[in-house]
């Protein structure tokens, strides 16, 4: 294998793939980047066995071939090189030389045969989706996934693909985020996928919003593809809990609140709330919400805010950090909160949002036993 590549292209390719390389691994080849020549240049690939990323950059190929090179060393070298063309060549199966101006490196790679093969996903009948839509879904839901290991299902984001819309749902069992966006003729039929958030992060990072993506499902893998870059990920086995049943339909107490003021009040309360539960109390009344927090050993705080509220007065407790996180993701200046009773789920939605997407978050209250 022998090719010449500009320093910039090399760096660009490495930057795309590097984040998929595990920092610690028991399988040495996973610390390497696979470099293969293609028609137009080279393809760089990396994987941690859960997620695989590969991307193609232009280069002048003299001799076709493939090899794996330690990712960390290659990235460090690329960063320090003079801005001149870089010549890369293999000698035998695993010796690699790299020359750039007066700089010369010899690296020991690992033969490509040892690099794990990618899951096979057929893109023949793929969904075709605007990257921007996907970005929007991901950025509004992924924060709500569970990080606790006890229920692996909840460690993933549910992605429902339908002919005319798609939806993502994430929850940790205490709070939930759900977003729908309409799509124009996605292509393939309906499907429910549970996707690890790490893969969605890569998707968001690697595919610019203006690109069109192809998405296809394999046995238990999912592939995302743009003309130059692809991401493959393992799927989490279902079934996802019946989230639709827990979304309240009969919340009869409705508050419209300025998001910034609400966040401000909550952030002030959190200072005095318990480190563990972040418990605060909200007392809703016509035209007004009062906040209060009492933490033994620490102290107490109160605050209040003028709001639009319809319904009977209500006292309800929440983990303030859940509310704050949701508010951070709300796209509008005003938010609409609905409640039923101190033991029932509350919802938070954008108020006056002109976007065709639909967004709903849900929080279970925190009760004080005393």
């Amino acid at each position, binding site marked *: 294998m022998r090719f010449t590549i500009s320093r910039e292209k090399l760096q660009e390719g490495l930057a795309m793939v590097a984040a998929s390389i595990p920092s610690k691994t028991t399988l040495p080849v996973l610390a390497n980047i696979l470099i293969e020549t293609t028609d137009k240049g080279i393809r760089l690939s990396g994987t941690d066995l859960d997620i695989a990323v590969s991307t193609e950059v232009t280069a002048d190929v003299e001799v076709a071939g493939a090899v794996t090179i330690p990712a960390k060393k290659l990235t460090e070298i690329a960063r320090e090189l003079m801005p001149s063309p870089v010549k890369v060549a293999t000698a035998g199966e695993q010796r690699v030389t790299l020359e750039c101006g007066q700089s010369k490196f010899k690296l020991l790679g690992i033969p490509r045969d040892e690099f794990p093969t990618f899951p096979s996903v057929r893109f023949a009948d793929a969904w075709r989706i605007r990257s921007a839509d996907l970005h929007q879904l991901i950025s509004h839901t992924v924060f709500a996934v569970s*990080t*606790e*290991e*006890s229920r692996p299902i909840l460690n993933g984001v549910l992605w429902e693909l339908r002919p005319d819309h798609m939806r993502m749902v994430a*929850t940790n*069992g*205490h*709070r*939930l985020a759900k977003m729908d966006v309409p799509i124009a003729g996605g292509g393939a039929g309906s499907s429910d996928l549970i996707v690890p958030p790490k893969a969605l992060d890569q998707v968001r990072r690697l595919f610019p919003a203006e690109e069109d993506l192809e998405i296809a499902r394999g046995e238990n893998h999912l592939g995302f593809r743009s003309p130059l870059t692809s991401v493959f990920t393992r799927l989490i086995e279902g079934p996802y*809990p*019946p*989230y639709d049943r*827990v979304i309240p339909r009969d919340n009869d107490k409705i508050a419209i609140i300025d998001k910034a003021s609400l966040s401000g009040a909550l952030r002030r309360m959190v200072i005095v709330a*318990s*480190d*563990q*539960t972040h*418990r605060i109390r909200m007392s809703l009344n016509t035209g007004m919400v009062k906040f209060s927090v009492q933490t*033994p*050993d*620490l*102290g107490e705080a109160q605050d209040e805010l003028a709001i639009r509220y319809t319904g009977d007065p209500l006292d309800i*407790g929440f*983990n303030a950090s859940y509310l704050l996180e949701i508010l951070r993701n709300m796209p509008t200046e005003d938010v609409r909160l609905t409640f039923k009773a101190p*033991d*029932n*789920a509350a919802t938070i939605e954008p108020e006056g949002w002109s976007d065709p997407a639909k967004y709903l978050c*849900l929080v*279970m*209250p*925190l*009760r*004080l*036993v*005393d």
Partner: protein
Amino acid sequence: MPTVAVLPADVADQIAAGEVVERPASAVKELIENALDAGASAVDVEIFEGGRAGVRVSDDGSGMDRADALLALQRHATSKIRRAEDLVGVQSFGFRGEALPAIASVSHLTLHTAAERGPGTAVRVVGGTIERTEEAPRQRGTTVDVTRLFQNVPARLKFMRSARTEWRAVADAVTAIALARPSVHMTLSHDGRRVMTLPPAPTLRARIGAVWGAEYAESLLAVHDTHNATTVTGLVERPSDVGTRARRIHIAVNGRTIRDAGLVRAAEAAYRSTIPAGLRPSLMLELTIPADAVDVNVHPAKAEVRFRERWPTERAVEGAVRRALGVLSSAAAVGPRVWNGGGAGAGLGAPAYEAGPWNGVPPDGGNGSNGDYDPRGAPNGVGAEILRALASRGDPLFEAADAAGAGAADASRGEAATEIAVPPLVQLRRTYLMFEHAEGVVLIDQHSAHERVLYERFMGALEGGSMASQHLLFPLTLHLSAAAADAFDTHRALFSRLGFEAEGFGGHTVVVHSVPSPHPRFDAERCLRETLDALTGDRQPGTAARHERLAATIACKAAIKAGEELSPGEMRSLFVALARTTLPAHDVHGRSTVVRLPWEELERRFGRR
């Protein structure tokens, strides 16, 4: 010099009546107390055949003139009180005027005494009758020589035990007084052999060192606390030492050694959750309370007192001991005590205390080869210095940020929301947090520490505090074994206090709607399952014990485990939470949450000293 007078009959009648001397040890106790009441600075005690053959107590106190010496042998003759009112707040050991005549009536007794001026008098009494009184010169002081004890009382004689058993009781009685008055020079000999020499000691700790060895003394934790009008001082056993050696109890109230099961129980309560059930700590506690708050005239042998208000007194004891257990020095230390010269050469993690040189009583009753009481660690040696310094510093484990304030002790009592200053923390092996302290390197076991934090929080919730409970979007459905379902039913109300809101669905299925949320990584289902497993097969303990058992079990299951990586923020909040607990240095199983590696120990290992 006070003079002896016979109490009026109506006063005498008010004095707790009963048997004053029932065995040699009680005679010895009375005689030493008389010596101390006379202001003696040195008391020598000689015992023969466990006291069956003879008892002799000599002092350098005030002594008596001839008239007083004769009067002192009469019943109800005393120099210590005059009127019934004097009984309130009496400071002296004696106040009845009973001891000398009582002993004299059941023995052959010689009282040899001399006051500052005057010739000196010897009085010989046989079975209560004065046989001879003569002038006999001696230095100021008194010697009482008692032989043929109970020889004229067959009923008593029958109940006397072997010389060895009686000796044991005598030694205990002498030790008890020696601890109550560390400043008095005392010696004890048995059948002509000196078995204990106790030079004047500046502190209780030093005196304990002289009795049971410096290493033992140094292993104890200092107690010093004043609550309302009650001051509790003394020394108690480190939780990690409890059960590894003889248990010793010494309780004194206003300088008087007493028995009091209630105070012992109160002190033990302070250990709750730091030591396994069934183990009982050694306690050496001295209470100072207003004289009129305690009645000493309730027991014929003065072995008990009555408190005007018992409950606050017990509270004060419990609080003081708990506070002592809350400081860093109560944590287990690595290596031998620094001040014993490193002779023990224990490896890391092997503190291995040996029993003191005299573990209770010499096994051979003091007649054998090793019955030597001589203190190994002389109380005025270097050791005692360091020890006193440490004891007075009470080094708090977790410094309060405002150094001027009362500090972590207050914070740990929840009285003030003192900010806890968090030192830089490092996680080791995903299991321990390490930080630097003025005294050395300190390691915290993250699981044990978190367990302690949660235990106190859960106990608080069970005892009426509040607990936040997170409602679940998707209720948990648990299919339990019959035994686990049983355990759930038994503890249902308590689980709900802890935040587990659940309904039974008949059979063994339980649906949980809301769960506690003690930390972000909390796995409610697993915690509940494991707790129920641990609770199955439990006998039905009392309510208090059930609370503790449940809180301890849930705390253990809910706490972060060894092997979990903590973010810097998590480490800091664990540190602060631990510092706010009442007993930060001990987990709920009696293990240490904190281990100290003192600088001295490090320096010793690196050959720097």
